[in-house]
C-alpha cells in the first residue's frame, strides 16, 4: 500500500509531464474506439440494409443461379415448388425473377437486369407497391443512383428490350412509376424492377422465379429439389469480409497511437531512473528491497495508463456518445465504395472493445514501465547514494 501511495505521489509530483503522457495514451484509446465504432456502425447499417432490402431471412436460389455470373441468368429460373409457393402465398416469402435486358434512355443503349417482384409483397422493405400504379402500361421501379446515371425521372417512358428464352427479341415501353432512394446498391445499380407477373409474361416463364426471399424471422424449410437455401450468414459473408479488411486500418491506428504513448512512457521511465538514483539509494538504505523499488517505478509507469483511461473517459466518452447520437455525414462519392452506407454513419461502439483496448493499454504501459525499471536491480546502493550508476 505504501508503494502505491508513493507511486501516486511521485507521478502527480511530475506535474504536466505525467498528464501529457496520459493524454497521448488517451488519444489512442478514444481514436481507436471511435474508429472501431465507425466500422462497426457501417457494418451494422450495411447488414441491416441488406437484410431489410435484399436478403430477408435467407434466400432459396434456383440451383443454376450464380450472382457472380450474369450469364447463368438465362438458365437460372424454374417454376416455384409447392413448398415455396405456399410460403409466398402465406406472405412469409416473396419470389424474384431475373433476366438480362437492355434499356434505351435518351436513345442510348445500356445493359441492365430486369427483376420481377410481387408489388404486394411485404418481405422486403422497399416500395414495390408503386408497381401497382394503374394506367402505367408496364410500370418500372428504379433506384436513385441508376436514375441519375441514365437521366430518368418519375413519369418518364423508356424502352426495354429483352430476349425470350428461345432467343427471340422483344421490346416494350416502360413507365418509371417511382424512383426509390436506397442505400443498397444491389437493388439499385443497373436494374429495373417490374411486376413479377408482367416479367413472367414477358419472359414466357409463367410461375417461374430465380430466387425466393424468406421473411425475417421465418424458420427456413429444407430446400426443395432444384433449389438451394442460402442463410443470412452466407449471404452476408462478402460484407463481413469487406468489413474485416477495413478493420486492419483500425488496428494500424491503434498501434501507431499506442506506440507514441509507450515511447513517451519509456523515455519518462529511463529519465526518472537516471535522475532519481539518490532516491533509489535512499529507499534501499531505508530497507526497501530492490524488488520493491522496481515495483514502485513500474507502478509509477503503469499509473500513466490508469490516468490515460480516466482522462480518455472524461473527454472521450461524451464525444463518442455525441457521435453515436448525431452520426456524421458521408462525403459525396462514397456511395459506390462497395458497402451500403446511408447519408449519415452512426458509430456503434462495443463496450467489450473499449474495455479491451483500455486493458491492453494498461498492460502495455506496465510492460513498458517494467523494462527500464529492471536496471534498478543492478544498482549498488552505495553508488546510488552517491548519485552514480553501476
Amino acid at each position, binding site marked *: 500500500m505504501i508503494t502505491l501511495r508513493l507511486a501516486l505521489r511521485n507521478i502527480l509530483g511530475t506535474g504536466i509531464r505525467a498528464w501529457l503522457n496520459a493524454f497521448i495514451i488517451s488519444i489512442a484509446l478514444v481514436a481507436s474506439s471511435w474508429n472501431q465504432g465507425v466500422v462497426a456502425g457501417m457494418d451494422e447499417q450495411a447488414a441491416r440494409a441488406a437484410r431489410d432490402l435484399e436478403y430477408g431471412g435467407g434466400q432459396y436460389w434456383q440451383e443454376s443461379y450464380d450472382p457472380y455470373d450474369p450469364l447463368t441468368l438465362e438458365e437460372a429460373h424454374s417454376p416455384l415448388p409447392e413448398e415455396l409457393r405456399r410460403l409466398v402465398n402465406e406472405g412469409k416469402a416473396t419470389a424474384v425473377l431475373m433476366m438480362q435486358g437492355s434499356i434505351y434512355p435518351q436513345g442510348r443503349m445500356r445493359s441492365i437486369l430486369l427483376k420481377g417482384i410481387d408489388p404486394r409483397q411485404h418481405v422486403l422493405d422497399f416500395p414495390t407497391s408503386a408497381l401497382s400504379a394503374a394506367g402505367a402500361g408496364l410500370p418500372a421501379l428504379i433506384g436513385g443512383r441508376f436514375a441519375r446515371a441514365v437521366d430518368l425521372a418519375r413519369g418518364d417512358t423508356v424502352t426495354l*428490350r429483352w430476349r425470350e428464352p428461345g432467343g427471340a427479341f422483344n*421490346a416494350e415501353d416502360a413507365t418509371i412509376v417511382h424512383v426509390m432512394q436506397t442505400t443498397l446498391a444491389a437493388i439499385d445499380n443497373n436494374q429495373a424492377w417490374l411486376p413479377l407477373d408482367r416479367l413472367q409474361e414477358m419472359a414466357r416463364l409463367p410461375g417461374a422465379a430465380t430466387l425466393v426471399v424468406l421473411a425475417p424471422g421465418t424458420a427456413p424449410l429444407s430446400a426443395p429439389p432444384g433449389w438451394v437455401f442460402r442463410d443470412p450468414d452466407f449471404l452476408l459473408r462478402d460484407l463481413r469480409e469487406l468489413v474485416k479488411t477495413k478493420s486492419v486500418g483500425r488496428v494500424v491506428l491503434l498501434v501507431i497511437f499506442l506506440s507514441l504513448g509507450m515511447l513517451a512512457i519509456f523515455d519518462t521511465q529511463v529519465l526518472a531512473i537516471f535522475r532519481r538514483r539518490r532516491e533509489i539509494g535512499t529507499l534501499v538504505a531505508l530497507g526497501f528491497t530492490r524488488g520493491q523499488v522496481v515495483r514502485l517505478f513500474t507502478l509509477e509507469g503503469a499509473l500513466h495508463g490508469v490516468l490515460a483511461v480516466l482522462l480518455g473517459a472524461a473527454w472521450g466518452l461524451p464525444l463518442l456518445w455525441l457521435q453515436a447520437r448525431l452520426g456524421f455525414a458521408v462525403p459525396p462519392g462514397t456511395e459506390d465504395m462497395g458497402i451500403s452506407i446511408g447519408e449519415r454513419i452512426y458509430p456503434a461502439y462495443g463496450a467489450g472493445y473499449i474495455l479491451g483496448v483500455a486493458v491492453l493499454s494498461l498492460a502495455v504501459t506496465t510492460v513498458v514501465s517494467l523494462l527500464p525499471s529492471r536496471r534498478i536491480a543492478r544498482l549498488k546502493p552505495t553508488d546510488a547514494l552517491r548519485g552514480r550508476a553501476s
Partner: protein
Amino acid sequence: MKQAAAVIVLFLVLAPARAAATAPESAGAILKKVDENRVTGNKVILSEMTIHGRRFSRTVRARSWIQGTEKSFSEYLEPPRERGTKMLKLGDQLWTYYPASDRVILIAGHMLRQSVMGSDLSYEDMLEDPTLHDSQQGAVSGEETLLGRPCWVLDLRALREDAAYPSRRLWVDRERYTVMREDRFARSGRLLKTAVVESVRRFGDRWLPDRVRFKDALKEGEGTVFAILEIQFDAAIPGAVFSKAALKK
C-alpha cells in the same frame, strides 16, 4: 467489317437484274425469287463500313472472300489500328483474330450479341441464315416506290419460334427482286432494326445495293453505312482461305 459486307450482300439480295414478267402470286413466290437471285457462287468484295457514333464517325475498310452462304473470310485493311484483324465464318461459327494479341477467339454465347466494331450490327446478325423462303412466311401487304423503283411490301413472320426477329417487313424490287429495305421487329411489334438501301449500282450484268444504312431503331444516331466498293464474282478462292490457320497468316 467484311463480315458485315457478307451479311449485307446476303440479306440485301445481290440479285441480277431480272424483269418480272408478271406479279408473283404470293409472298412465298417472291421470296423464292429473291433467294434464287442471290449470288451463291464465290465472290470477293472490297467494302467500307462507316460507323456513326454520338461524337464522331469512323470508317473501316475490309476485303472479304465469300463462298455461298456458309463460308466467308474477311480481313480489315483500314484504319491502321484495325489492320490485320480477321474474321472467319464457317456455318454458324465465327472466329476473330486480333494481331495485337495474336490470338484467335471463337465468338460464342453472349459475345454474339455484341456489336461488330461498334456498329449497329451484331455478330449474331452476321451469322443469320440469309435464305428467306424457307425461314419466313407472310403476305404481300402493298406496293411502294423506293429510290424510284416499284417495290412489293412483304409482311413476314419467322417460321421458327426461336428466331431472333419474330417478324420483319421487306420491300422487294418488283423487277430486280432485290431487297430495297428491311425492317425487323420484336415479338411485340416494336421496330428494332432497319436496313435501308441508299443506292443501287450495276456490277457487270448485276444490279446490287452498293450502299446500305443499318440502324438500331431504338438508338439515336445515324446508324452504320455499308458500302461495296468493288466486287468480283466467280472468283477462284483457294479452300485454305476458309480455315482457322488462315487467320494467323
